């Protein structure tokens, strides 16, 4: 039954791929910006004597890149390449897009996983503390901190962390981009916003569960507070939280763009930004496709985890 469920969900990937790639393709081509001009003129970043390009060179490059063909033909070629597992060649770097994604993905996965780890651990811990101590200063404090976490832009937060923790206190290097030292601050910055959302949701969900009869029965039976909260109440309270965790993954991927830029880390985010600035069509389309598939797969894992959290939930046959 589980396998059938997984198969059904994976089949939904096909319309997702079509939809995402089509809209990404359309948006790229509808914006009236010519990637060949950007490439030949050196884009927004040039230095040293600039080369002056003739119309002949420009026309020749458009032909070579296939940009002189009708849009549908270009899209069809792109789909044909995907079917063969080929994401094309970057206009700018001339490297295979799949190779570029493979080179940059581990750093983003590492950062997203660490950020998610921070978000889950911190968010659930704070949410539980607020729920268990509701209507006290602990509860008020956690809610206030979560509002701050939601409202502070990650760009600013990143620079403040660098200034305070690396520069003033000297606890971590400013520019460590590898190893655990290079992960702490970026993961904190990335995870804080999601932690705020998770904390608030955990709090409200747990408060609701703690008011249920079976929990009151557990208290009446004389079970310890730790046992009541963590063994009996929290697991049920986490079901909506798990849903949000899956949705937050998308936010983490977009947040990774900013965090990678601020901290100078490798990653899909910074690679995608460079591709967007230069309208590197194959790179952007390939990256969007990979990220969309990742997002769907993560949400699939989230859905599968419901059954583990609450055995009453049977996938597709819930009572």
């Amino acid at each position: 039954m589980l396998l059938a469920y997984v198969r059904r969900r994976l089949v939904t990937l096909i319309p997702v791929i079509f939809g995402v790639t089509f809209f990404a393709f359309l948006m790229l081509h509808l914006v009236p910006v010519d990637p060949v001009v950007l490439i030949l003129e050196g884009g927004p970043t040039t230095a040293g004597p600039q080369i002056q390009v003739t119309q002949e060179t420009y026309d020749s490059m458009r032909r070579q890149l296939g940009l002189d063909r009708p849009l549908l033909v270009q899209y069809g070629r792109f789909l044909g390449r995907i079917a063969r597992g080929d994401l094309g060649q970057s206009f700018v770097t001339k490297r295979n897009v799949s190779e570029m994604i493979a080179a940059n993905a581990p750093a983003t996965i590492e950062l997203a996983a660490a950020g998610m780890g921070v978000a889950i651990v911190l968010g659930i811990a704070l949410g539980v503390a607020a729920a268990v101590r509701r209507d006290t200063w602990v509860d008020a404090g956690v809610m206030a901190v979560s509002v701050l976490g939601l409202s502070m832009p990650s760009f600013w937060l990143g620079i403040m962390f660098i200034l305070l923790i690396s520069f003033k206190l000297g606890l971590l290097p400013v520019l460590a981009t590898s190893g655990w030292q290079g992960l702490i601050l970026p993961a904190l910055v990335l995870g804080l916003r999601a932690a705020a959302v998770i904390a608030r949701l955990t709090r409200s969900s747990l408060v609701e569960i703690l008011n249920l009869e079976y929990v009151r029965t557990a208290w009446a039976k004389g079970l310890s507070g730790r046992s009541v909260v963590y063994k009996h109440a929290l697991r049920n309270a986490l079901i909506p939280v798990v849903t949000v965790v899956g949705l937050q993954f998308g936010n983490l991927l977009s947040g990774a763009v900013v965090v990678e830029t601020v901290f100078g880390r490798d990653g899909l985010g910074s690679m995608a930004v460079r591709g967007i600035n230069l309208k590197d069509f194959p790179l952007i389309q390939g990256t969007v496709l990979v990220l969309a598939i990742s997002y769907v797969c993560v949400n699939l894992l989230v859905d599968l985890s419901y059954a583990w959290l609450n055995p009453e939930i049977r996938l597709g046959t819930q009572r």
Partner: protein
Amino acid sequence: MRRKHQYMIATVFGLVCIMTLGLQAAPAPQPGAPQRGGTLVVVAAVKPDMLDPSIHFNTLANRISRNTHDSLVSMENPNKFVPALAERWEVAKDFKTFTFFLRKDVKFHDGTPLTAEAVKATWERSLDPANRAAQSQLFGKDPKIETPNASTVRISFAEPHPRFLQQVSLPQLGPGSPAAWQRMGQAYLMSPVGTGPFKVEAWQGENTLILARHTDYRWGPSYGQNRGAPYVDRIIFRFVPEEAARTLALERREIHIAEEPARQSVNTYQSDQRFQIVQFQVPGLPQNWPFNTTRWPSYELAVRRAVVHAIDRERIAKVAFFGTVNVAYGPLTQSNWAFWPEAKNYHRYDPKKSIEILEGAGFKKNASTGFYEKDGKPLRMRLVTSSTDDQVKQGTMVQAMLREVGIDLVVEAMSTAASFARYRNNDYELARHGLNTVDPDGLSFAYHSQQITTAAVSNRGRLSFKALDLMLERGRAATESEERRRVYWQVQKTLLDMANSVYTTESTYFNVALSCVQGFRWNANGYTEFHDTWLSGDCRRIGQ
């Protein structure tokens, strides 16, 4: 008790004095003789998308390529070339044929010898349409490359190409190892093999590049102090887009050099003995906003003259750039050898004159809006420019200055890509322009009528004057520098008389380094060279 109190105060005061003296910045250490060893750590803002200088698009990569690839000649200044990989050369009187006689002791980083065939193969690689290299534009018309013997390269063109020596001095025409690119395939694009003082050792991830000393190197340009192998063992390039992270890392002494510090920090670093600012005045066409001469109101000479007299460029340089840049006076920068000194007397700030010009041309002020009008049409212009910090600041200041004289300037800042689209669609009254070029022939790129229909509309003023075209063509064809200077002076006068553009400021590149980094410089083309760089004192501990 009172005496005890006094003793305490005196003691505390004495301690404070001692601490203050101890905390004062130590005087800058005397460098002494160059020392070998150490790893130089440089943090740049933008990662190059490709390193192979024969093919890459982004000239920022040349800041690295200049250190991995030598050219056949080096440019000491725009009118003086010195031997590099070529120990001598011959230029035909008609500037159609160039013959280079190569040194016989040069080796590529992979140990293979530099030969004429290698130079030919490199240039053919740039010319190959399959590689889509803009570098093909550096050659003249119909290039033909020959190798009469193993150390002689001859290139000839169908038309004169007086500027070819200058192009040859660029890293883009520096030879690479054919054996290496055949062996490495696509990997060569990010790890090219040249003859430069440093070789690509490795990439760590995607954002860290390590160069290592080329130990066999002994053919450095004569304008440098060091003709042999570089002093430092390695250079680590890190690519960090965020400026605050770059400069904080420098102040924490985690790195040696940070590129492009914030403008407001430049003066602070200059006065702090722990650091040094190394700057480069970019030659060529300064930052300017050409008027679109095909749209109203910018096609009216009176409007253009009124605008240029209403702008206080000194104030822009001081406020928007914290006094770190020069004012731009005309079509060429002051550092360009063909700059016309009389340009400084044009377009002086005089808002009263602006108003007189407008009223003399029949414009009337609308009392309710405060802006001038003519035949019911408000005097409004749109400046389409990029959304960089510099442009937005300048645009905002100029908007306020023009409002004072009754001109409505709408500043539309957007991505470079989007602005190019607007230029192509002729949907602007003022555009953004500027060009880094050592040769004043760059004026053709910006003002010849043939450049109106190019993909990025290089001639954004859309000027189409036969007389101007002829002057530019004469300047390009002339071979004597004095004659060229006269012609380009005439071009500048013509453009300034037409008030063709708002000239604001000249570009300057800044790098900030620890004061213990010695011998770090920009070359005449605006690329950083580390061949003479060495590390003194505790600079050698960084990067280990």
